[in-house]
């Protein structure tokens, strides 16, 4: 076909089709995305068989179920961890006491994910006193007479809203953030403001000088796991606080894990320790 004397045609440049190009970019982006956001470990759907039996036995026990530090949970409280039940202050504060106990042990590599922080837990009544009485009238300086919150990594605070809703708040000294985690995605600005007011007052009272708010920001990520019902917020709140005590704020649980987490919490309360197997 070539005419004599003419040179061979130049090699055809490789021009991938648009589809191939797009597919290449998609694959590359997915790989980058996976490295940036590794897939979340999935929580199991049930405890080991013997532990499930122990949970059922705990539900049937009368009287006081367990004690830790100054908190206790009785049979009337533990049944609130059955499906669809609202949680009360006894469950929330017992969970907080377990988080504090683990933080105080300060064992290395105690948990598979994250690292146990120097956390301080303030009971569910702290927020009520702060909201209704304020720092002075509520005598809140005395709540921390044995602790310097400014030397901690994080201060964890459960927040009860109108005796109908639980959320988690945190003063994160490591990341300089006032944090609010709400499984209904609502409570934020009022919580941030109150956390700031508390830190300001506590610093003035204990350190006798104003707190330096430079670099501090308010934090309530859109990625906060959400509930799709009218009863699980207390479980979300306990799990927010537990994750935060390990420095983990990219929560792995979702609404569908709540039935499992309720049973895990029963086991943990009955054995007065947090499970570190997940």
């Amino acid at each position, binding site marked *: 076909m070539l005419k004599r004397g003419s040179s061979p045609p130049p090699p055809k440049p490789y021009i991938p089709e648009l589809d191939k190009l797009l597919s290449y970019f998609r694959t590359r982006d997915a790989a980058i995305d996976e490295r940036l956001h590794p897939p979340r470990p999935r929580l199991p759907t049930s405890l080991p068989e013997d532990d499930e039996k122990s949970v059922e036995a705990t539900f049937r026990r009368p009287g006081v179920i367990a004690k830790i530090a100054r908190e206790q949970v009785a049979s009337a409280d533990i049944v609130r961890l059955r499906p669809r039940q609202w*949680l009360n202050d006894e469950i929330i504060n017992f969970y907080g006491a377990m988080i504090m106990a683990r933080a105080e042990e300060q064992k290395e590599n105690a948990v598979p994910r994250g690292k146990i922080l120097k956390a301080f837990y303030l009971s569910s009544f702290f927020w009520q006193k702060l909201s209704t009485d304020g720092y002075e009238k509520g005598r809140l300086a005395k709540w921390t007479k044995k602790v310097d919150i400014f030397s901690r990594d994080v201060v964890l605070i459960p927040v009860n*809203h109108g005796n109908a809703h639980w959320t988690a708040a945190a003063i994160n000294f490591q990341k300089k953030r006032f944090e609010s985690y709400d499984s209904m995605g609502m409570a934020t600005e009022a919580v941030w403001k109150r956390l700031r007011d508390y830190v300001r007052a506590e610093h003035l009272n204990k350190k006798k000088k104003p707190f330096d708010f430079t670099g501090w920001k308010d934090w309530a990520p859109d990625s906060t796991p959400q509930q799709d019902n009218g009863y699980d917020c*207390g479980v979300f709140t306990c799990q927010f606080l537990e994750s935060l005590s390990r420095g983990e704020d990219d929560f792995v649980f979702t609404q569908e894990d709540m039935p499992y987490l309720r049973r895990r919490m029963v086991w943990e309360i009955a054995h007065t320790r947090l499970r570190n197997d997940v």
Partner: protein
Amino acid sequence: MSDNEHGGNPSQDEGVKQEDPNATINIKVVSSTGEEVFFKIKRSTKLSKLQGAYASKVGKDVSSIRFLYDGDRIQEDDTPLSLEMEDNDTIDVMVEQVGGRRL
């Protein structure tokens, strides 16, 4: 109750820790709505007695209310002595909190 304690105590006693278990102490119990009830008890008396007396006075079941001293839940065996309470200290009474969702 009619003792004039301040008049009766020499001023040099102030600031000295009162260790006598039979000495009495005034305690203010404040509800979450601000009502105050005053008690005068021995430093060695278990605070569970005060809790029971308070509950019947306000007509509440003890298991439905929580007694806090400086944020700490008061235990069965706690006494003013064990908690190192001082005269005219305050005990907060809180009621059970619940939550499941925003109404």
